[in-house]
């Protein structure tokens, strides 16, 4: 038998190399990275994420080169219509038929909470960028999702604390009568009372409400220093517009909007919103890096990005970079590997992913500019202070998440 040791050795080496190569290939499920984008594409929350968020996601995929580890990146999207049922059914379909690797977007907190349950059941991975409820990484935490941009904890902690420190001691709360509003109201009440303030009265208004004049009149009658708006979207816009018509600010009261997006301020105009304090996770004009990215985004959409849209780009990039580095798109491995990499880009400063899935990063206290101060259509905020990542979010010592060892 003319068997040659050298041939054997080289055959084994060749076989091993082939195996290894195919091994890497096998790590990328179905030879594609499949990202599903789920958001409100047509309703109240459309403009803060919606089609603009999908555009940010596509931009990240394009900037990454359209493929990772030699396999293409495929993006698809669906409208959840702010319904937890529709959202959950869509994602269930994505698991059954589309082999989705990453679910991105997600705006209404109720939708996100429903989807995270599915992510856990199907061993998937999701990054939530649009939702507010801090419970998403507290009592509803799973090892299968990450919450990226902001939540109700820093909103209360940033805005309410700053307002009380500036002398706004007595508060009248105007709260959207559903889970998100109640959560925000609770967080705000805690912060106001801890800092020596007082809640004099609370009104819970139906969601959504068209006419706020009656509530604003009641708030005026209360004599409180501050009217706190624990609502979002069109409710906040309506409340602020009405307050302006009824001369709330001239009457010596101040409004504190607790969840306000760039598109809300843009819609209302500076005349009605000037001087408003708010907490944001990011602002397009906050520094050179942010401006540079935003101008590229503006060229594609003709709108400046909200913090959610920027966060979608940032989180998608972080995901793709992790996949490239780890050589796999296995959800569990990627979730762990993502947490090992610090998040430091045009969006997040001092960012990292905690074991509860919360991506903590610096937050900012901003004030809406007056029409005289503003130099352009989108020149809307003046960043007044940075809230360091460590202080901004709910400390792990207070966490109710099962993944945190308390």
């Amino acid at each position: 038998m003319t068997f040659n040791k050298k041939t054997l050795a080289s055959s084994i080496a060749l076989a091993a190399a082939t195996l290894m190569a195919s091994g890497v290939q096998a790590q990328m499920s179905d030879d594609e990275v499949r990202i599903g984008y789920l958001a409100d594409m047509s309703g109240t929350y459309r403009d803060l994420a919606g089609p603009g968020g999908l555009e940010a996601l596509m931009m990240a995929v394009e900037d990454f080169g359209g493929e990772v580890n030699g396999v293409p990146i495929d993006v698809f999207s669906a409208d959840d219509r702010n319904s937890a049922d529709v959202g959950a059914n869509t994602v269930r379909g994505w698991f059954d038929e589309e082999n989705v690797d990453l679910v991105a977007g997600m705006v209404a907190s109720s939708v996100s909470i429903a989807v995270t349950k599915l992510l856990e059941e199907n061993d998937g991975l999701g990054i939530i960028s649009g939702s507010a409820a801090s419970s998403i990484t507290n009592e509803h935490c799973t090892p299968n999702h990450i919450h990226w941009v902001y939540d109700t904890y820093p909103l209360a902690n940033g805005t309410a604390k700053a307002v009380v420190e500036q002398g706004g001691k007595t508060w009248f709360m105007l709260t959207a009568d559903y889970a998100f509003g109640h959560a925000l109201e609770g967080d705000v009440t805690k912060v106001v009372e801890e800092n020596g303030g007082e809640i004099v009265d609370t009104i819970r208004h139906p969601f959504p409400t068209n006419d706020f004049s009656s509530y604003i009149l009641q708030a005026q009658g209360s004599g409180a220093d501050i009217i706190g708006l624990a609502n979002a979207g069109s409710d906040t816009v309506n409340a602020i517009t009405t307050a302006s018509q009824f001369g709330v600010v001239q009457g010596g009261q101040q409004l504190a909007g607790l969840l306000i997006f760039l598109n809300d301020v843009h819609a209302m105009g500076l005349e009605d919103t000037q001087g408003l304090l708010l907490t944001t996770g990011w602002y397009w004009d906050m520094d050179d890096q942010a401006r540079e990215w935003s101008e590229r985004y503006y060229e594609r959409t003709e709108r400046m990005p909200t913090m959610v849209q920027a966060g979608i780009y940032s989180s998608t990039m972080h995901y793709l970079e992790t996949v490239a580095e780890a050589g796999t798109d296995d959800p569990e491995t990627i979730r762990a590997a993502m947490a090992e990499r610090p998040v430091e880009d045009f969006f997040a400063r001092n960012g990292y992913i905690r074991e509860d899935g919360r991506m903590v990063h610096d937050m900012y206290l901003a004030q809406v500019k007056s029409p005289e101060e503003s130099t352009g259509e989108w020149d809307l905020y003046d960043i007044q202070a940075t809230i360091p990542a460590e202080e901004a979010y709910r400390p792990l010592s207070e966490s109710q998440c099962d993944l945190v060892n308390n």
Partner: protein
Amino acid sequence: MTMIFGVPLAVFMGQLMLGLINGAFYALLSLGLAVIFGLLKIVNFAHGAQYMLGAFAALLGLQYLGLNYWVALLVVPLVVGGLGMLIERTLLRRIAHLDHLYGLLLTFGLALIFEGTLINFFGVSGSSYPTPTALEGGLNLGFMFLPTYRAWVLVAALVVCLGTWFIIERTRLGAYLRAGTENSALMQAFGVNVPLLITLTYGFGVALAAFAGVLAAPLYPVSPTMGSSLLIVVFAVVVIGGMGSILGAILTGLSMGLIEGLTKVYYPEAANTVIFLVMILVLLLRPSGLFGKEA
């Protein structure tokens, strides 16, 4: 201080005033619906979208053509009413002989198309429309600070409502209209152009919605979805008042505004539902509505 059920009199009066203003809005919108249903038997589900188109036309007219508020108040109802007449001529007329349900579905579909198209171009956040300079500021009524513009809305809406009621119930033209819908063959035999009358009536109902839209523009953010949230309430008002009753729509609109206003003080959580509770009660006790003719 005098108290009414635990609320200071001044606050109570203020809330009644605001309720009356909202009621005037409901009256104006439900009046258009009542005219269209009463005379044409069309359940106009596009009414909310037509109201929204009125507000949008005012906004775009200001931005692109420099049309001021007062011009818009006259021109926009004509333009949107004209669009309504076009819809009646080209679409509604073709299904006039079918069950009401088809008209409802058609107008609902149109509403979705108008809304979807505008969402595509303008998003949902909406834009603000400046208050006309002549109506800026406010009046101190002693018990409340009332923005001048809201006082104007109340007056304008009431004048238009009463004018419409007068035309339909007290003039010869109104008599033709009512007769034409009652027995169109006979009216045509008398030489009255009934199809034209119907087109004009639909156009008029739509123009009322657009007028309400222009009135609303400086009050609420102008957005493509502003009509759909209001439409359901307005339909409830029409049902309570009695489908097709002109005076019923006006009086019910005003009183529902008041009831809603008081709910916002005593139990705000129910403010969005109270009108529907009244509707259920009315349907149970008087199915044809408060002012409807017994079926």
